[in-house]
């Protein structure tokens, strides 16, 4: 408050505590207070004759470069964590979870048939695809929106992303093995599904590459 060194002591009946002591007091009050404390409030709480503003300034300088700082919050003062140490105040736990079966299937269909609409995914899976499944894949950044299909209703299509390719270690979605290769690798029952001829499968494969051509 006063810039004059002698004024507070002179005007007081009792001698004010030394400035270093005032600084200790300000430190303790700022530490224990639930709210930032204003200078006037500090002066009211400190013994008569104290100069809270000066003590605060000393304290502020003392904490420069420390793990916590004396900062101004509006008209008041508070002790806060140094901004560069904010990372210590959070603890991150990473939890690995296996993608649900519905999500894996949806993702597979998008990868093999992109660009593909939701209606097409549902037709292939034979069950409806929940909004949440698509959202989850979008959030994982494994799929994104492709061009709208030029059919009635102009439905959105989904395609896989670079992130998808990185995660699954693929150069391009075309590197995904076809049904024949899956079968050769023993990932598929050797019997062809009823009603699907080998020829039909070939055609499908071709159709698939067509789609990828569209994308490129």
């Amino acid at each position, binding site marked *: 408050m006063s810039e004059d060194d002698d004024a507070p002591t002179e005007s007081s009946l009792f001698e004010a505590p030394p400035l270093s002591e005032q600084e200790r007091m300000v430190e*303790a009050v700022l*530490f*224990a*207070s*639930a*709210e930032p404390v204003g200078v006037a409030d500090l002066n009211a709480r400190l013994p008569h004759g104290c100069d809270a503003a000066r003590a605060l300034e000393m304290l502020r300088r003392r904490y420069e470069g420390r793990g916590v700082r004396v900062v101004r919050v509006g008209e008041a003062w*508070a002790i806060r*964590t140094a901004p560069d140490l904010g990372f210590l*105040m*959070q*603890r*991150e*736990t*990473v*939890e*690995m*979870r*296996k*993608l649900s*079966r519905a*999500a*894996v*299937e949806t*993702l*597979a*269909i998008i*990868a*093999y048939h992109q660009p593909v609409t939701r209606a097409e995914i549902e037709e*292939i*899976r*034979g069950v409806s695809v929940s909004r949440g499944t698509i959202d*989850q894949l979008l959030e*994982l950044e494994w799929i994104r929106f492709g061009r709208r299909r030029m059919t009635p209703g102009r439905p959105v299509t989904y395609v896989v992303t670079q992130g998808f390719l990185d995660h*699954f*270690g*693929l150069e391009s979605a075309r590197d*995904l*093995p076809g*049904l024949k290769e*899956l079968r050769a690798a023993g*990932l*598929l*029952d050797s*019997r*062809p*599904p*009823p009603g699907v001829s080998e020829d039909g499968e070939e055609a499908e494969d071709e159709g698939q590459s067509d789609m990828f051509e569209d994308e490129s």
Partner: protein
Amino acid sequence: MDDAGEIVDSIEARRAAEALIVDVDGFEGPLDLLLSLSRTQKVDLRKISVLQLAEQYLGFVERAKALRIELAADYLVMAAWLAFLKSRLLLPPDPEDEGPTGEDLAAHLAFQLERLQAMRDVAARLMGRDRLGRDVFARGTPTDVTRIRRVTYTATLLDLMQAYARIRTRDDFRPYVMDRDSIYTMEEALDRMRGLIGYAGEWMTLSNWLPEGWETDPARRRSATAANFAASLELVKQGAAEIRQSATFAPIEIRKVAR
């Protein structure tokens, strides 16, 4: 000497004694009362005259009775014990008696009083310390540690291809074949246990019966435990085995029926 009432002669002492009687509810038990009485001796608790104290206590109880003050049972138990102690201290020791001497008993009472007094003293010192929230303060604005829980979903290329293959050849897949992986049926358990029960002469806990590969994974262990338990009951019903459990949630034990 045993007329303790006559000891109280000065007005001050009588007033103090009356205060004791009026405050009888304020005492925290006979030891507390004895400790208060011992203060009138104004000596170190280690040098206290237990005989004198016993007389003071008995006198107190007598006066309380005369004033028809209801004394709690433990005060009367203590009175009886002190009367016994007094006789021990006054009578010459009986060489036939193997029990503790009057001096031993008196020393222990003195120890108890000293210990209680010591606990009161340190309790007062403890309460007089600088205390958190009264003299010393913690941080007024603690910063919460934010816990960021990040869930990462994973799938492998194999998952992806198998999923696709599954869709494209759906009709070839039996729908529950994967799920039955972790199901152990009662029939399986029964078959297995029938073969093994003959060797179970001693009580064995049910968990020891789990087949290999079914002990660790929780889902498989649950299934195998349930199947084994059902199979055990079946064996008991057939008279091939005995089953017991010593208490609720205690391990269930099985052994073969001794023939």
